[in-house]
């Protein structure tokens, strides 16, 4: 027994309940609830939004927040509240798509790099190269090659995120493959596919979940930058970045044009990050820091 170990205490048999988890991790739980509210409001936007987000109303231009228009209207008389709710759909879609795409691609490459030493050197240099490409430049380049679309935005954000996942997965695989239980599995005749599936990959799940939340938050944010710069989501789509970009022209006379979508953007990024931090603490994968 080393000098600093705590005394052994019999582990409780059952897993802690939902309520106890909430009490133990209050902040992540609040993050999760907030995120859930944002997700529900975005998904339900077509039904709960009071106005059509595209409907222009020449009479009601730049109306301040009030009874008719909760968040006010923009320069074309469109309802900011409805547009913000619909914008959440775009941000959410991009966040989730990028998280899934980069995690899936990164997992595959990471496993190969971590397990096969020959592939490792080459793959990791390629990843270093990819990481050096700023997402915004890549998006501008892609936009100039093709038409603006959400898919291009997703690709442009995913590519620089992949190397982060690769590094994470590779680190986990490299650590786990040295574990004695991998040696033990080999000794009892375990073949490669099962070794990977049963013994190595499960260790990547927890850090990947945490990493995926950070990627989603980052993707939401980057989408806004790109749209704001005019190289992201097509301008007719009411994404948060587009709403803020259009509203900036009138910020001195109609601050609500950028205030409310900005708040939603900030809340979503914050809630995902808080949830991610909480998951990291809960799952305690030591490798799940931002790489």
């Amino acid at each position, binding site marked *: *027994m*080393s*000098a*600093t*170990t*705590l*005394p*052994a*205490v*019999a582990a409780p048999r059952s897993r802690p309940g939902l309520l106890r988890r909430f009490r133990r991790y209050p902040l992540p739980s609040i993050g999760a609830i907030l995120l859930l509210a944002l997700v529900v409001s975005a998904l339900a936007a077509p039904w709960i939004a009071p106005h059509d987000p595209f409907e222009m109303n020449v009479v009601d231009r730049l109306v301040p927040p009030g009874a008719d228009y909760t968040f006010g209207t923009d320069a074309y008389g469109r309802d900011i509240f409805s547009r913000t709710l619909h914008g959440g759909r775009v941000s959410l879609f991009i966040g989730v798509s990028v998280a899934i795409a980069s995690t899936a691609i990164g997992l595959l490459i990471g496993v190969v790099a971590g397990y096969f030493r020959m592939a490792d050197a080459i793959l990791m240099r390629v990843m270093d190269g990819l990481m050096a490409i700023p997402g915004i430049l890549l998006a501008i380049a892609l936009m100039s090659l093709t038409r603006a679309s959400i898919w291009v935005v997703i690709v442009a954000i995913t590519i620089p995120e992949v190397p982060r996942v690769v590094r994470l997965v590779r680190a986990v695989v490299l650590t786990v493959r040295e574990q004695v239980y991998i040696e033990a599995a080999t000794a009892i005749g375990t073949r490669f596919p099962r070794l990977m599936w049963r013994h190595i990959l499960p260790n990547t799940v927890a850090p990947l979940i945490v990493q995926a939340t950070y990627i989603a938050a980052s993707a939401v944010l980057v989408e806004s930058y790109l749209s704001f710069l005019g190289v992201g989501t097509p301008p007719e789509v009411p994404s948060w970045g587009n709403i803020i970009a259009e509203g900036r022209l009138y910020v001195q006379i109609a601050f609500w044009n950028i205030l409310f979508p900005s708040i939603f953007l900030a809340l979503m990024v914050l809630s995902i990050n808080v949830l991610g931090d909480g998951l990291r603490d809960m799952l305690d994968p030591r490798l799940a820091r931002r790489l």
Partner: protein
Amino acid sequence: MTEQPILALEGLRTEFATGQGAPVVAVNDLSLTLKRGETLCIVGESGCGKSLTALSILRLLPRPYGRIGGGRVLLEGRDLAQATDAEMRQIRGRAISMIFQEPMTSLNPVLTIGRQIAETVMVHEGLDWTACMGRALEMLRQVRIPEPERRLHEYPHQLSGGMRQRVMIAMALACRPRVLLADEPTTALDVTIQAQILDLVRDLQAETGAAVILITHDLGVVAEMADRVLVMYAGHKVEEGSVEEIFDAPAHPYTQGLMQAMPHLGSGEHRSRLNEIAGVVPALNARPPGCSFAPRCGLATDRCRQEMPPLTGLGGTHMAACWAAGGSQA
């Protein structure tokens, strides 16, 4: 027996706060005395509280969970349980030093060993740097490190395991402490290196007159080193006595079990069944109400399972906490 002990524990109780409910008690009502130049071995298996006893003496329990929940730690009559943190810093390394099982984690990897020893001296004795480095060199020589002048300027990773443990001992003894706490100092070492380190501790003890508390799970080390022995089980002292008393006539069934469970070199009992102690040490928060050892004890009666046996004298300095030991008093 009139000589005042250097160190005495009186009813030490070490607790750990848990998330819910009452704290768990890791060391319960532990008393011991240590005289000048004496070696006391605390024996027990993982989780018996022997390491936490040492950490309690130095007030190095992991914060914020661990704390001394009662009793006194008397260093020459002064209660360390009540001392301030500043006072404890003065005592650690100077009056009482400690060496740990894994010397690599206890040495700073980015400082030369000479500097680490010298800084200990500087903190406690306020000598100038040259004098401190001089003392460091002298200490390396004393722990018989070959080529001490060169080693002084080396980093911990350049040394072998046995060499690092010597450096730890040099650092621990640099300020001439009166008490040395050694927590499994040779467990991570090979037998031939262990033999060197044990010899070294014995020689240095003779030279400096320090009292040593040696914490170990290895009865062989106890037989080699101890003047007196204290056996712990599940946070309690279950037996205490001189090394001869314990080895000649172990009184507690746990001590007897430990001795019979260990295969001895040259015992001639090749491939006979070893005496096993059935079961495992109970978890801290799941200790039985009576004697903690009762669930694993072949002699346990209903009384053992309900009532904690007190420590009973068995003649001389020998005492044990067992209803079955010493028979007639029960």
